């Protein structure tokens, strides 16, 4: 593979080692990491459960029953895994470039808002039209909300972690206001929108359950990422993530890739918001993003920033999240424990990932042009 731009040719041999190291350990190594991480987290979890006098075996049984106990429960796991997978797969490219977009809840809610508004106005249209229009505009809205922190980073060098988090609070506030004012539904005096019409819902995949075709849309991103990896854009992205000095030499626009990567990260969240509203809940409410929250990011990290890894991790976390609901019923454990598990997973990952990620970020900082001119 060679990079040709403006007549300058860079053969493979001259690509610095840091580019190659982005590939990381092999597939088997990643699976091993996954297994060790999960094992360690289960140990801590058991300790916490023992501390509040809950039988871990009983807790496990209720998780198992509520995950694989029946077709209905299995399909519920799919329902929980779908948004996680969508968010994770679109976040993978930006995470590989060392950009931490943790604004999934805000982007998801913005996508849900756009989808609800359009679905309510497209009542008389054919189902295909309604589906495509709502889906595309939800994805675009999510991308726009994610692109704002990207632009702020490209233009002013503002830390994207804080701005994406701030965007979450801003979007949720705006939705809270809309649902108490112009968007409020007619049914009850609650901050909820009207129910979306039938023609906007995704078809059901497993009859008699809530599992919908969204999982197939999410899985469609797997070959997309695979193709991206092997394209020129994918190669430039790897260069961008590994060494920004090289990026400049190759005349790759840092600004364009920064904003583009962040925007792509919002696409999956926007689509998840669309599915959540038109297929699962049928209406918009202020806490629409809570079932997903930051878990999409965990899936991407736990999956070792690969597409296939993300699919495995999304299914496991989907089962865990649905199992968390089952815990409440089966073992009288409040579902907040799932958040502890997510934190543990990320902690394990952060320590395991180690210095490489820190180095990537520090490279990025030293290359900011306005900083250089000041010193």
């Amino acid at each position, binding site marked *: 593979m060679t990079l040709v731009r403006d007549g300058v040719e860079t053969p493979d041999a001259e690509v610095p080692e840091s580019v190659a190291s982005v590939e990381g350990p092999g597939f088997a190594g990643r699976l091993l990491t996954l297994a060790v991480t999960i094992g360690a987290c289960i140990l801590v979890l058991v300790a916490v459960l023992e501390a509040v006098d809950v039988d871990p075996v009983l807790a496990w049984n209720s998780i198992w029953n509520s995950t694989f106990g029946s077709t209905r429960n299995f399909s519920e796991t799919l329902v929980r895994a779908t948004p996680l997978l969508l968010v994770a797969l679109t976040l993978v490219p930006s995470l590989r470039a060392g950009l931490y977009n943790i604004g999934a809840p805000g982007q998801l809610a913005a996508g849900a808002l756009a989808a609800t508004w359009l679905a309510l106005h497209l009542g008389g249209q054919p189902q295909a039209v309604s589906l495509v229009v709502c889906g595309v505009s939800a994805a675009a809205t999510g991308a726009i909300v994610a692109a704002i922190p990207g632009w702020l980073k490209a233009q002013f060098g503002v830390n994207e972690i804080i701005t994406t988090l701030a965007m979450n609070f801003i979007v949720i506030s705006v939705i809270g206001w809309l649902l108490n004012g112009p968007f409020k539904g007619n049914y009850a005096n609650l901050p909820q929108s009207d129910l979306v019409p039938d023609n906007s819902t995704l078809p059901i995949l497993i009859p008699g359950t809530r599992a919908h075709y969204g999982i197939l849309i999410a899985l469609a991103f797997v070959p997309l990422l695979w193709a991206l990896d092997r394209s020129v854009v994918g190669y430039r992205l790897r260069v961008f993530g590994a060494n920004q000095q090289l990026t400049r030499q190759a005349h790759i626009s840092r600004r364009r890739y920064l904003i583009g990567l962040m925007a792509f990260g919002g696409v999956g969240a926007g689509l998840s918001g669309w599915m959540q509203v038109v297929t699962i809940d049928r209406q918009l409410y202020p806490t629409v993003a809570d079932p997903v929250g930051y878990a999409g990011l965990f899936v991407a990290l736990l999956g070792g920033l690969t597409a296939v890894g993300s699919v495995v991790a999304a299914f496991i976390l989907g089962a865990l999240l649905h199992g968390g609901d089952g815990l409440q019923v089966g073992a009288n454990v409040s579902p*907040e424990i799932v958040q502890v598990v997510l934190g543990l997973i990320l902690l394990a990952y952060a320590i395991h990932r180690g210095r490489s990620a820190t180095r990537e970020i520090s490279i990025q900082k030293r290359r900011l042009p306005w900083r250089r001119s000041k010193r």
Partner: protein
Amino acid sequence: METFEAVMNSSVRLMIPLLLAALGELISERAGVMNIGLEGYMTAGAFTAFAVAVGGWGLAPAILLAAVAASLVAGVMAIGAVWLRGNAILVGFALFVMLPGLANFLYVQQNNQGATPKLHLISIPGLDDIPLIGRALFAQNVFYWMAIVLCVVVYLLFSRTQAGLTVTATGHEPETVRKRGRSPRMVQTMALLACGALAGLGGASLSLGAVGSYQPNIVDGRGLIVIAIVILGRWSVPGAVAGAFLIALLDALKLRVTQGSDIPVQLLGALPWVVVILMLVASTRMHSHAPRTLTQ
């Protein structure tokens, strides 16, 4: 004028948790550790203070143990990010997610919904009669006075002492600190523990002072606002005080404005976050003492 007095009073009260936590974040960022997990430390402090106070152990142990508990959480950060060389931002984010979850879990699971003992106002006789600002500045609870004293202590630490200089040097040039025979890791660990203690006090001032109980997600993003405050305050103590007061003033105005008009309260909820983004944008244009190793 009565409105002004009321707004001043509530701004100062709302400022206390922000200021205490900002002092902690200031120390750790000066040492070169970006601390996204501040929210977790504050939650640990808030929950511990609540649990100890409701358990009937008294207020002083509650405040002390809040600082200790939050320091322990900061210790996890130190082990993960400083000693095991994990990615500081991700370790912090893990604590940001995990600690509120753990505290909410324990709160719901124990189902203990008592109220904490009331904190008395400590006022300075004479000064608290000053019109307009007297009650706001000279009649507040114990956390306010703690914050004042700690502001002075941290300011003197960085301007007058060798220890403060070492912390600042670690943030700028850890290699130089190492050559001078001090361990940058040790300095960062100490800075993190101090940050934890201060953030724990900030959390305790929320549960014991502001709310009088624990409630799920009590910190509600304040940990992140504090990080922005430190950045806008250009890593200095007076800057932190000014930033904390600005955010608190916005909060106080929010409560006030929505009472008498039809500006929707939900939209005003977004205001501090918009200000935080603007603050961050503005701060990139200013000359600052940003620790050079800090990943901004």
